[in-house]
């Protein structure tokens, strides 16, 4: 339903706009004096100043791969995140872990794991779907690059962002 807004009837001095102009300048001047005395609000000087300390615990930034305390890469390349990813940002090529590797019993790992950060929508479904607790959304939000290639995070970069994570389920322990 349409609402009819009544146009206010302006007095003759209001038609001149000068009072409104001076009113605006008064506000600007007031802020100027306040800032000059060092008491006013000010814009954050990004990137020298950042929000990082104010980010809440649950902040969803860039998705990244993590290693556990035994320094094992947790991802087993099950490709569930690739499947669930709504913008299809994730590409995984799995490989078999060679038999002389310390973690040969895990059998499978990603040969290639790429997340296209131009595509990523930070929805967190990859973290939610992961059966191995291997992918987490970290607090990195400033993802920039000068080319499309640079915006694709490869496995090395993903582990750099992810780092080591403590307190995860130890699924591949000695009993297994």
């Amino acid at each position, binding site marked *: 339903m349409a609402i009819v807004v009544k146009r206010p009837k302006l007095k003759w001095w209001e038609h001149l706009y000068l009072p409104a102009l001076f009113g605006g300048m008064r506000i600007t001047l007031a802020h100027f004096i306040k800032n000059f005395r060092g008491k006013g609000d000010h814009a954050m000087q990004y990137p020298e100043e950042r929000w990082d300390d104010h980010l809440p615990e649950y902040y969803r930034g860039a998705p990244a791969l993590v290693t556990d305390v035994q320094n094992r890469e947790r991802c*087993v*390349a*099950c*490709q*569930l995140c*690739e*499947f669930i990813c709504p913008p299809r940002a994730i590409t995984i090529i*799995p*490989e*078999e872990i060679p*038999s002389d590797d310390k973690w040969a*019993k*895990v*059998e*499978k790992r990603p040969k290639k794991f790429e997340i296209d950060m131009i595509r990523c929508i930070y929805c967190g479904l990859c973290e939610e779907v992961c*059966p*191995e607790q291997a992918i987490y959304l970290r607090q990195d939000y400033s993802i920039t690059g000068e080319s499309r290639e640079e915006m694709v995070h490869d496995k090395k970069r993903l582990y750099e962002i992810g780092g080591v994570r403590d307190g995860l389920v130890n699924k591949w322990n000695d*009993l*297994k």
Partner: protein
Amino acid sequence: MSEVKPDLIDVQINGEWHSFPKGTRMIEACKEVGVEVPHYCYHPKLTSPGNCRMCLVEMGMPPRPAPGSDPVEPDEDGHVPISWIPRPVIACANTIAPNMGIRTESEMTEECRKGVMELLLANHPLDCPICDQAGECSLQEFSVEHGKGESRFREQKVKKPKNVEIGPRIRLDDERCIMCSRCIRFMDEIADQPVLGFTDRGSHTTLTIHPGHELTSNYSLNTADLCPVGALTSNDFRFQMRVWFMKETKTIDVNCATGANITVFAREGKIYRVIPRQNNNVNSNWMPDSHRLNIHWINSEARLTDPLVRDEKSGNHRVATWNGAMQTSADALLKLDGSEIAVIGSARMTNEELLITNRLAKQLDAGHVDVVAREGEPDGYLISADRNPNSNGAKLILGLENPGSTIDQIREGIAQGRIKALVCLQENIIDDAGFSADELAKLDFFLTSYPLANATAEVADVVLPGACWAEKSGTMVNGTGRLQRLNKCIEGPGQTLEAWEIVRDLIQALGGGNGIYAATELFAQLAGEVPEFEGITFGQIGDLGLPLIETDERIPLLEREAERKAQGLIVG
């Protein structure tokens, strides 16, 4: 007049009465009316040991009156009330009986399934994230449907051998094995290499291969298809792609005249695996390893992607447009008399492609038309001696009595200079038909189309990228005379065209007619022109094909299967 009816027996399934032929297994009766009975060890093509216990159902029989008491009167339909037996029975190995009752949804049945699932999962590793079977695993499916959802097993799981190479193409993970014994029975009953078996019977039952033996049979990969879990996996497909990403296409195998029915799994233009598809008139449920693994060249670097024309000045091939290549070919061919031109087609082409090749030969008035023959040893199972998938099609459509018999005449003709131009479609005649590069160099004009770059392409004047079997649709006639459909699974690389499109464009460049836009249109014309195909439509062929002509070729594996079915060993 009364019809002759087979012996039909009335059976009540979940409260409803149905009729089935005498001797039907309970599980098959349920399947027929759309009631699923979960099972692991049962397979209609193998004997039924009844060892997984997953198909337990509640069963009832007509009441047996005590001596002296009156029998129960049947109702107007002739059925008597069923007295239910307090213990469950397996549905896979038991046959139906008159007035039998089966309950697959009762509390007892559900409890049985839940119990069996709990025991099967007690020692199962639950490594689904790395297991190739995940997504098509019966254990996963039935666990969701009938399982408890949690384990009460607090003890340590039994450790068994993992990642065991039991053959050149098969890997075994014993911890995942649920001891259904399908693979053991397959290798014993069908592949005739009884080397698999169970040892350490009890909690530690282990599937093993006989010491000193390997699973070398050319049918070994069927065990990976049969395995309801991920215990047996294919080395070739292992860790390559998760099953839920792949698109499945029903098509046929082209490695021999049997034309095994297959399902091709592909993702984003790459074929990852091929598995057999049931067709009781062609390949039963199986296919040879050698045929299913012959897919890796399709995505290889050697694929031709653009039409190439030999540059007159430098003598090297240069990339041309399709129109340019066709014009060059037409110009060269129109200079010659028909008797100086030979056309070599391929018995790997579809019927539609053979039809249009025949038209090309007529348009050119070509003196010689033939296909390349491929012979091999039959293996006594599914592989035919004829390694061409459509020799019967070539006989019917090109009118060849003995395909491949005049290839030597064409060679002679080229050597003597009688044949000056050769159009070779979808064949590599240097490697497969014994031609030599020097011989072919004598030709004034040589055109070849093929999926791969090869020695024949090297000496050709015009090289055209022709689609391979997975990139085209059409029909073929197999060794036993069955008309089957080949379906397109993936797109061809680059500028690739299907052979019928290439020939159509060539006919057009030569000044002939056009107006064909789809292979199905060619099939309609085929049905009008070749008497054997009369009245058949493309859609009518269906996924399982149609018998078209009578031949004397038999498939040995099917004959043995029929024997075993007649003996009552298998359901078939």
